[in-house]
């Protein structure tokens, strides 16, 4: 399973959505009605899932879409 597929699954589960409703362009705030607590919760789940270090606040602020999150995870895993 790719990073994107796993992240899509986790987002669908957290926001009670079907996978078909989500794309990389899906925005957390505009499309999923996420607030800051939702985003931090999801981030912690992602960190645990992929064994990432704590996400810096400035990086967190730049994650607006599912695609942004996938890019962040892939680039962090590579490093």
């Amino acid at each position, binding site marked *: 399973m790719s990073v994107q597929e796993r992240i899509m699954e986790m987002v669908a589960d957290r926001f*009670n959505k079907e996978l078909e409703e989500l794309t990389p362009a899906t925005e957390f705030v505009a499309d999923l*009605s996420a607030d*800051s*607590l939702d985003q*931090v*919760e999801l981030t*912690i789940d992602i960190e645990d899932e992929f064994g990432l270090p*704590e996400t810096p*606040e400035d990086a967190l602020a730049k994650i607006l879409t599912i695609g942004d999150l996938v890019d962040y995870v892939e680039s962090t895993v590579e490093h």
Partner: protein
Amino acid sequence: MKIIIDAMGGDHAPEEIVKGAVQAHQTLGHDLLLVGREADIRRCLRVEGTENLPGIQIQNADDVIDMNDDPTLAIRRKKDSSMVVALNLLKDGEGDAVVSAGSTGALLTGATLIVRRIKGIRRAALAPALPNMGAGALLIDCGANAECTPEQLLQFAYMGDLYAKRMLGIGSPRVALLNNGTEEHKGTSMHQETYQLLKQADLNFVGNVEGSQVLFGEVDVIVTDGFSGNILLKTIEGTAKFLLKNIKEILMSGLKNKLAALMVKNDIGALKKMMDPNEIGGTALLGISKPVIKAHGSSEASAVVNAIRQAAEFAQSDFIQTIAEHIDDMRMDSVKDEKEF
């Protein structure tokens, strides 16, 4: 039963927290795990003459989350704070419930991020029991979520209904939506949509209730967003203080009134006690997967005792398990589907 106490949270911590914990241990018999700066806790225990009391353990935590800390940053960064350590101990099964009089925002954030919500619950809510002309009325939410969606309010209604049944002993709680009028069309679009959801839900929904009517025993669960709920709660507190102050001034003016005061002294005392936040003790964070109780920030020892009692009763109840089992009923599409079929 072991209750984990954030010994450093609150205006009068750690002195009053430790004092209350010792009293609770002696009167209720529960084991306690005090979390905070060990030297400070031991000093307070010495003052109480109970430094080596079996049944009271200490877990050192050097840091403290204060009221000015950003909740999310504090929970993520202050990993050795008494609140974060206490919540991690609860998560790891080292106790049955957590009591904290610390920052409400940090406790809510910490409980959500560390202990986690019941699966399917969108938001945890603060739900204090208000004194009223009946068995008490549950106000949900009183400040955890400033803005809410209709689905979140539907979940609050179900959680409030179950809490009123289990913890307040009300057989069929009358659930009402706080609004600016009783008619169905009143309020914002959020209120109107929530009204329709509650009307269709498997609840004893009695319609809208105005702020002026919530204390007269006609409703048992008051559903509202945290912004309005907090204003209602603080207005009630302020009005109660205002009235008691004026009654006191009337009763202390002139010989005739002082004599009258002597005759009703016990009744006035009972009224004052009913309105005292220390008597209520704490507020449960409903929707979290393990019991977390927020004690009033200005808690004195008696409030801590009551909060520990409440935590133990909550932990002994099947509230969380029952919510988890009925989570599908609390979804917006589930309520709408019922109407359609």
